[in-house]
């Protein structure tokens, strides 16, 4: 019988600093023991662990198009994330997953997708965007529009990728910062303000949203103004988790568990749940 608490061993291939303040890093992990294909969809997460230190959940930040090398973008917040930051290539780390539901890919087929991310919450949206841009998948979606913001330019993640995306003609990208520095020549302002300027056909567009609570709070009314229906807005939520498999009892919103029923919920569904997130 499979033990759902037993992790598989992963090898650290890369440990890259993402932000100027080094508070966020991205680990790229490969499987130590070959096993069946690690099949996942963008938006799912996994529990990373160091035995004796602890375990914590992280969204999978890389595209399922490359299931052998998994990226996790980790903000240093406590003991586990600090130890994860210290890992070097060749070190091993435990992984349980994939967990959760992920973004509703089938529902997105044949539609415009509006990706809205803020800060550290952009990781699984980066996974989705990379996935959607893959030549094998790009035809499944109509227009792909990405809005991504951070407090300042130094806190932007995936800078090389953003540069590439900005040059592509099969997607559009708006990167915005709340506070600019001297070198910043891009957009200044909040994510909801950037969303407000978009021309969106509400009938053919679905939005994927992940970011800090304040960004979500001010973005949702803008999406409503643009005419998006609540069932066409999908949010990826954060909640404290331990088991990741619906048993330990702490990540519920009403009767729904963020770890197994989520982390991605449509706004229509969230509107039927108590406001406790």
């Amino acid at each position: 019988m499979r033990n759902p608490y037993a992790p598989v061993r992963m090898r650290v291939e890369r440990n890259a600093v993402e932000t100027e303040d080094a508070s966020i890093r991205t680990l790229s992990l490969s499987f130590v023991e070959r096993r069946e294909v690690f099949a996942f969809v963008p938006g799912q997460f996994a529990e990373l662990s160091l035995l004796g230190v602890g375990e914590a959940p992280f969204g999978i930040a890389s595209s399922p198009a490359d299931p052998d090398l998994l990226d996790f973008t980790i903000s240093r917040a406590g003991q586990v994330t600090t130890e994860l930051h210290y890992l070097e290539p060749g070190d091993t780390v435990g992984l349980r997953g994939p967990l959760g539901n992920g973004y509703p890919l089938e529902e997105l087929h044949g539609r415009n997708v509006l990706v809205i991310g803020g800060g550290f919450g952009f990781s699984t949206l980066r996974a989705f965007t990379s996935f959607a841009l893959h030549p094998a998948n790009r035809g499944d979606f109509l227009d792909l529009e990405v809005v991504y913001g951070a407090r300042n330019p130094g806190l932007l993640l995936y800078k090389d990728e953003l540069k590439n995306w900005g040059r592509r003609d099969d997607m559009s990208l708006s990167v915005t910062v709340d506070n600019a520095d001297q070198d910043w020549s891009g957009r200044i302002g909040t994510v909801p303000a950037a969303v407000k300027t978009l021309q969106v056909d509400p009938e053919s567009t679905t939005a994927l949203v992940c970011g800090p609570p304040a960004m979500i709070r001010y973005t949702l009314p803008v999406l409503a103004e643009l005419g998006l229906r609540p069932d066409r807005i999908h949010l990826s939520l954060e909640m404290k988790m331990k088991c990741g498999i619906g048993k330990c009892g702490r990540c519920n919103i009403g009767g729904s568990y963020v770890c197994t029923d989520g982390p991605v919920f449509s706004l229509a569904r969230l509107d039927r749940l108590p406001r406790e997130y």
Partner: protein
Amino acid sequence: MRTIARNEIGRLLDGLLAGYAVYAPVRRKGILVFDRIRSGDEAILDYANTRTSPKHVLMPQMETLLSSCGEDPGVSEHTDCGKPAVLFGARPCDARAFLFLDKVLRDGQSRDVYYANRRDSLLVISIGCTQPRETCFCTTTGGGPLSAEGSDILLEDLGSVYLAHVASSRGAEFAAAHGLLDTCEGEPPGSGTVNGGLQPAIEPPVDLGLLKAALDRSFDDPLWLTLAEKCLGCGICSYLCPACHCFDIVDEEAAGVRVRNRVWDSCQFSCFTAQASGFNPRPTGRERYRQRIMHKFNYCIDNHGMAGCVGCGRCVSECPVNLDMRQVLAAFGGRRGGN
């Protein structure tokens, strides 16, 4: 033989000790609890219920899930639960709580192997109640003093003898092997016996269906704040509850041994949901007390088809500020005929 004499119980338990880890009601440090016995005559038969529930038999307060040692990269999983166990003398409420734990931990979409292995090698012999305690409310939650749900064998207490009711196929095998033949097939516990009239003695303070409907409308009720003002948030209710199963996973390292432990946790603690960012979706007692009641009497009914409470009354009798679950439920409009 349809009955077993009270004074033969010790011998029955002695006979089990060779093949089973036997848990029975015993007094430890002055407190009545379920614990391993080494001799059949240790088991206490004259009791209303134990102070703590027997859930630790299936889910210890702390257990090691994984461990590793020194430089060895191998990880031990600790899923072997040792020899099969018998839980003797559980009350019907506590046995029924196992049914609930089964739904959450064993039968859900991910099987919790640690719980499942213990559960699948446990035989539950419960003893029906003759004298409910003042704090009992099992009939509210769908159980009763002679409920056999969650038990393999239910012993009906007739005074000097017990009448054995087989409640599962494993119970039937066990009864056959140990001479506890069930001759009251088709007769539910209590029919035609001295205990037949007991069940109505526990007056349900609420109707579960009405209560659930009321709770569906009560998320923002000001009463949660009033209740939370009384609650200390000590969590004793969670620790004593036979159905509370929420847990934490905590790692430790000492002297080169690394372990990942599972420990009981409580939704009444602020750190239960506090996120690394500092944000807490349940920042005060109001949200946390509401979670306790909503989880048990609303969400669990939606998700598992039964309440996460079996009415054992431990949270009522042991609460340091006398926050009485029955009064709380009644206050939320679940009174029979009320709204």
